[in-house]
């Protein structure tokens, strides 16, 4: 799961929705960057990045079957695996991730940024009272 040098981030987010949000830019299969998604949900309860199938299809991602069903709070559901490239960050400060396996679900309420790879690469501090999350690269 290669990435460019990790940068420290200090993201503030709109607290109307009550969950920590981070900016992410996905890349199409052909390398073309999408526009910035400003508020993906930083979700330590998710094992990996999860996106809606319609978005995966639009990005031209190749879907592969998963060996096991996906466990969600609502119960078991079907999902696929895809490999994606993306940029973490905004304002000219980006970390480029390549070949990251993600989960793709048809019924997916949001873009979820889970444990792999962000929480593995960063010490994540969510300061809900300040509507801020700090991502500190692990040593």
């Amino acid at each position, binding site marked *: 799961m290669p990435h460019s040098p990790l940068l420290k981030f200090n993201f503030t987010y709109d607290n109307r929705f009550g*969950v920590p949000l981070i900016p992410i830019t996905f890349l199409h299969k052909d390398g073309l960057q999408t526009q910035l998604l400003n508020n993906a949900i930083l*979700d330590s309860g998710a094992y990996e990045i999860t996106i*809606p199938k319609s978005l995966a299809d639009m990005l031209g991602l190749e879907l592969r079957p998963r060996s096991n069903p996906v466990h969600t709070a609502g119960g078991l559901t079907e999902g696929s695996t895809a490999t994606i490239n993306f940029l973490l960050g905004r304002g000219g400060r980006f970390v480029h991730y390549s070949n990251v396996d993600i989960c793709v679900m048809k019924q997916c309420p949001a873009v979820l940024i889970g444990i792999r790879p962000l929480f593995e690469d960063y010490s994540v501090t969510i300061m809900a009272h300040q509507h801020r999350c700090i991502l500190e690269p692990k040593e």
Partner: protein
Amino acid sequence: MKKKENTKKHEGTWVLLNKKRKVLYRSDNVADVFRKGQEYPHGTVIIEQRFEPGTCFF
């Protein structure tokens, strides 16, 4: 006094915003919004999801 039209029920979950945060496009289909975003020069617009306040994600 003209009654203010309630447009909330027509709002899409996903929105495309310009730098002044004016909504350029909205849809419940995330792919439609990303696709629409590709019509603009890169970096001139952003995509956001409008959650209902109080929405719980587990």
